[in-house]
């Protein structure tokens, strides 16, 4: 197993290299460049701009230059304002991570609670409510949900605010209470967490129901243990196992899927910067964010695979 794990880690490098290469050439195959606009720039200016950013070199040369810089930790400059890509990603990710983590926690807490309560109250009113919420959350696209939330709770009721991120924008500000504005945090986090909450609730409910049917629960009852003790100490713990395997993909999805929420609430995160980079043909930024995401997903993938092997003994890696 260890040998396998090490090999998988080493394989990350060629995988990321492949992603970088495919992205690079695909990116240049897309029509239009960073300086393409409806009112075309005079040729001399385009020549000067291309010279400035080395875009007039043959493609293979640009590719090698990029790889060379990459190995030295230099992700290049964004065409938009000549800002350092690494810095932009770092700053953007700081915000996206906050959003993702908060959404993850919210989804976990509410999803679990909802699922457990539903299961305990099976076919009762609480169960129907839980199932209803879970299904709505899973069935509505999050931008529609977000829009309705905004119109009802922010515009009409005025309870929350919808512009920007309500958390610290620099790492040093985390502990500074004035950097946190709850009114701005609520709606984006809720919008992003609805779908995972729904899934977690459903899986938890199904899992709990199955666990509650098990013999060892019956034994515990027979032994005369208090209901709460049974639930907490035996049922929930065992019900969590399938839920845990769900958490991995959910976490990855939250981080990578926050683009729409970031767009709607004007949150300066990396998801939004990424799509904008594609639309603007901001090559260095596209490469940087793609590699960044690819790295996160590949590592998360690896971790889940290893966990899978630990959990299911039938899976044998050779």
């Amino acid at each position, binding site marked *: 197993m260890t040998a396998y794990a090490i090999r998988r880690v080493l394989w990350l490098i060629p995988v990321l290299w492949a992603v970088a290469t495919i992205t690079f050439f695909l990116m240049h195959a897309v029509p239009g460049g960073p300086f393409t606009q409806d009112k075309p720039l005079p040729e001399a200016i385009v020549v000067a701009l291309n010279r400035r950013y080395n875009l007039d070199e043959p493609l293979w040369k640009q590719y090698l230059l990029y790889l060379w810089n990459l190995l030295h930790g230099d992700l290049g400059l964004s065409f938009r304002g000549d800002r350092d890509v690494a810095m932009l990603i770092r700053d953007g990710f700081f915000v996206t991570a906050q959003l993702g983590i908060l959404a993850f926690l919210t989804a976990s807490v509410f999803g679990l609670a909802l699922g457990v309560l539903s299961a305990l109250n099976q076919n009762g009113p609480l169960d129907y409510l839980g199932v209803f919420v879970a299904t709505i959350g899973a069935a509505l696209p999050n931008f529609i949900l977000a829009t309705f939330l905004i119109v009802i709770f922010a515009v009409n009721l005025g309870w929350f605010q919808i512009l920007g991120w309500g958390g610290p924008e620099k790492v040093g500000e985390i502990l500074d209470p004035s950097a946190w504005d709850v009114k701005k945090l609520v709606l984006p986090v809720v919008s992003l967490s609805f779908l995972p909450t729904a899934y977690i609730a459903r899986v938890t409910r199904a899992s709990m129901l199955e666990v509650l049917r098990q013999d060892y629960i019956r034994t515990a009852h027979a032994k005369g243990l208090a209901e709460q003790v049974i639930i907490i100490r035996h049922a929930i713990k065992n019900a969590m196992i399938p839920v845990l395997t769900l958490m991995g993909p959910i976490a990855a999805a939250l981080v990578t899927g926050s683009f729409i929420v970031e767009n709607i609430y004007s949150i300066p995160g990396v998801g939004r910067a990424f799509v904008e980079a*594609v639309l603007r043909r901001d090559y260095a930024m596209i490469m940087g964010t793609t590699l960044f995401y690819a790295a996160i997903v590949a590592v998360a993938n690896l971790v889940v695979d290893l966990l899978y092997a630990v959990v299911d003994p039938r899976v044998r890696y050779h």
Partner: protein
Amino acid sequence: MQDAELVERAELEGLLTVTRERGLWADAYYRLTRNRLAMAGLVILIVVAGLAAAAANIHAVQRYDPYMDQLYDHIQEAPSWSHFFGTDNLGRDNWARVLAGVSISLQIGIGTQIVVLFIGLMVGTIAALGGRFTDNVMMRLTDITYAFPDLLFIILMRSVLVGRDWPVIDNPKLQIILAIAFVNWTIIARLVRGQMLSLAERDFVLAAKALGASPWRVVVQHMLPNSLGPVIVAVTFGIPIAIFAEAALGFIGFGLPPPTASLGRLVSDGYAYVQVNFWVAVFPAAAVAILMLCFTFVGDGLRDALDPRTR
């Protein structure tokens, strides 16, 4: 004769239940049909799809052309008898557009999964049975595809393909189906591979091999059918995911070209007008929700029906 009578009496007195012998699929079918939620989902799906198909062909059902009937005097209207779902920003009937959208979304959802199934089965089987090196290569291929940010790949693919007059790939619907399928096949591939890997050690496979069955026969006749269970479930769940993906693409501007409107495009266009006339967004969103739910229930039902552990 006597035994039969005895058995019958015992049955009547609830002392003995005789389960009929069924094959895997028949058994699954039996269990599926007993699942009320799944059946409800299936029925609703059939009704909705039927309605969409009817609208495409019968004018009385569709009532207005979803693209060309732009009634400029009836813009952004709420639902009424003349317009069941109201009208949109160009005075087009929402009912007709939602039904057209259902049809398109279903095509995209199902089309995507067909491609996904094909690629996934191929890659997964080759990986599982091709030996260690092939497995490695296939799995790295899967890793690369999986690591690739979906959105980027789809946008790039669409941007590269759009506007070119290439023969087959010219069709935007096909482009979207391929684009979404290309980023989603990895799940099926891994599933198939996992199934195959664990099946490969099972007794009946070893037995078949021992009896001298050719590898091809072993795979097709013995392993594939037994691994299809979770695959079918995954494919079923994949349909609403594909519909969602297309909606998200439409939201950022990479969906189907106008005037064709998939449900996703209708929803995202409705977002722009939601404070003026929220009905425009509500109905397609509800349609997406209904399709999503139905497929989920059916998928759940299939999983319960096919899962050997819950017998």
